[in-house]
């Protein structure tokens, strides 16, 4: 196969070309860029022999333009009362913006100290998509939510093609609360890379909803790394549809346990699309809680991958973790790979996990049809119902970004 990244020489050639077209390292992140580029040159592009990438074919990358992205305006209404920041990877998202009370920009010293800390704590600083982001990101949105403050933000990005790296660092002080609604749209061939780090101090609460709509010739890599101190709550929800290739990695560590983690994911694939979620939750202390539901809808020849790692070491007694993977298979040529990966050493814990794969239920369809609802509309209602549980978990602005038609799939 000439046009794929299956051969080692092609992966090397692609990477070399990608690295060579990057502008010289510069600005506040120059050192990070240099380290990322060196690391990429060292580790190369993952192959399907690597367990973490076994089911996820990266061939699409070969066809993508490499130059920095053309900024574009997201297709959104004017928005409501929540402050909206445009992230385009180039211009300053905070130019001319007055941040609401309780939100502050991190100082350079704090940035130098904090950047990469949570990536290391969640053991993903050397992940390939993270290095790709570090090698190319020229700016970072770095914000603090002050102790006891409560804030909400919208972050929106649209790509009109090329490479769009987005990097975010969030520090939530004690009892701080942040609701973050994030939209990523790809409207032309290209690659979007997102890396978020968030540190939640004691009793802080972060709610993040990521809605990402792509197209067949666009790829998305996202890492959301969260460190949780005791009593903190992290709720991460993710909806991805339409990407030729999407890889999402929520990674959480409860540094001393006693925190609450809530994960909801929904990925939709049709045509030849691939969507892959690799989640990772580490309990490094007792009495931590996890409530995780991942859903996938696969139509056409689409392919969905879920790998849910949960680590419960000896010190994590009385952990209460539940993970569920639910999959809707709409075509006999679509494919679902789902795998829980529980590593439990502590002996006094509750760790539930489960996975289901089903098609639309004949009895449910017939019930709707027997009330005069056409077969196609009935199928649409049932698909929407399947997605509803995840959509409901999104913060309000993000939920508004998920109209029914965006979630419709070609079942061809």
């Amino acid at each position, binding site marked *: 196969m000439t046009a794929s990244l299956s051969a080692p020489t092609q992966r090397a050639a692609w990477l070399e070309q990608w690295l060579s077209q990057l502008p010289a390292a510069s600005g506040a992140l120059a050192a990070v860029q240099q380290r990322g580029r060196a690391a990429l040159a060292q580790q190369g592009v993952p192959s399907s022999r690597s367990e973490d990438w076994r089911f996820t074919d990266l061939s699409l990358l070969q066809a993508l333009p490499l130059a920095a992205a053309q900024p574009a305006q997201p297709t959104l209404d004017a928005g409501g009362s929540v402050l909206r920041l445009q992230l385009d990877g180039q211009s300053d998202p905070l130019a001319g913006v007055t941040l609401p009370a309780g939100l502050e920009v991190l100082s350079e010293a704090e940035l130098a100290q904090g950047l990469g800390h949570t990536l290391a704590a969640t053991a993903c600083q050397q992940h390939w998509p993270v290095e790709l982001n570090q090698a190319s990101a020229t700016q970072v949105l770095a914000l603090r939510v002050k102790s006891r403050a409560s804030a909400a933000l919208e972050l929106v990005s649209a790509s009109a093609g090329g490479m769009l790296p987005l990097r975010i660092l969030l520090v939530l002080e004690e009892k701080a609360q942040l609701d973050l609604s994030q939209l990523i749209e790809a409207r032309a061939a290209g690659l979007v890379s997102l890396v978020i780090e968030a540190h939640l101090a004691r009793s802080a609460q972060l709610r993040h909803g990521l809605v990402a709509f792509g197209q067949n010739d666009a790829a998305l890599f996202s890492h959301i790394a969260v460190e949780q101190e005791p009593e903190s709550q992290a709720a991460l929800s993710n909806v991805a549809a339409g990407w030729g290739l999407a890889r999402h990695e929520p990674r959480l560590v409860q540094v001393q346990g006693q925190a609450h983690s809530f994960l909801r994911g929904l990925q939709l694939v049709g045509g030849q699309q691939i969507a892959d979620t690799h989640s990772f939750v580490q309990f490094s202390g007792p009495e931590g809680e996890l409530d995780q539901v991942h859903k996938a809808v696969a139509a056409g020849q689409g392919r969905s991958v879920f790998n849910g790692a949960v680590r419960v070491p000896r010190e994590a007694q009385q952990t209460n973790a539940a993970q569920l993977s639910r999959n809707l298979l709409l075509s006999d040529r679509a494919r679902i790979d789902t795998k829980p990966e529980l590593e439990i050493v502590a002996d006094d814990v509750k760790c539930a996990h489960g996975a289901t794969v089903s098609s639309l239920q*004949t*009895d*449910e369809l*017939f*019930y*709707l*049809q*027997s*009330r*005069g*609802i*056409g*077969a196609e*509309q*009935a199928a649409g*209602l*049932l698909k*929407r*119902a*399947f*997605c*509803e*549980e995840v959509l409901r978990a999104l913060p309000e602005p993000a939920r508004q970004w998920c109209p029914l038609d965006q979630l419709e799939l070609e079942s061809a």
Partner: protein
Amino acid sequence: MLLEIRDLHARVEDKEILKGVNLTIRAGEIHAVMGRNGSGKSTLSKVLAGHPAYTVTGGSVTYRGENLLELDPEQRARTGVFLGFQYPVEIPGVSNLEFLRVATNARRAQKGEEELDTFAFEDLVRERLQVVQMDPAFLDRSVNEGFSGGEKKRNEILQMALLDPLVAILDETDSGLDIDALRIVAGGVNQLASPDNATLLITHYQRLLDAITPDYVHVMAAGRMLRTGGKELALELEERGYDWVDQELAALAAAEVA
């Protein structure tokens, strides 16, 4: 003539269940079909509604002069055939209110009536809720999800009240109901019966027929109608049980062999 079933044969997978059903239903009539488990009562109702698991292998069903068996399930419903399910299906994530509105509008469109918007529909549904004395809170829940047996059956009759069918087939609507729920459900059915429509009650027991008086009672056995009579036939069944059915079937089989 609303519905005419002639020599209807049907199977599920490889098993023949209906073996020559004949039944004629006119406007204004209430029919009851009684019979033991496995006699084919529920299969008859599902075949009439167009359930995909059942295959018609012979005979005909004519509904208002048209071949009912040619229509998709949704077309049957839109033209006025309603099946009240023995086990109404739970559909998590689909709002009951939205479901009722989409269904009602599909039926209205068929009748040439205008589509009801959210507000107009809410007015209508609140009025019809009274037919089954149902709490409006059930509208905000998912279709049948977590409903008790009685609540599910009331929701079925609510759908019937909204869809205004010409032929309502109620499959064991009385099963799993306590006496109060039975009274409410039967009251709803009586209220909806008119000279223009017809009702086909499928039931095991006499008790539903104490509350809804049928014009005809049919006893079904081994996939066909064994006997037809008036409401007194139901009382006779209640007294004598179904054992005589076996004797009649045996006699019938003997006659067919000879």
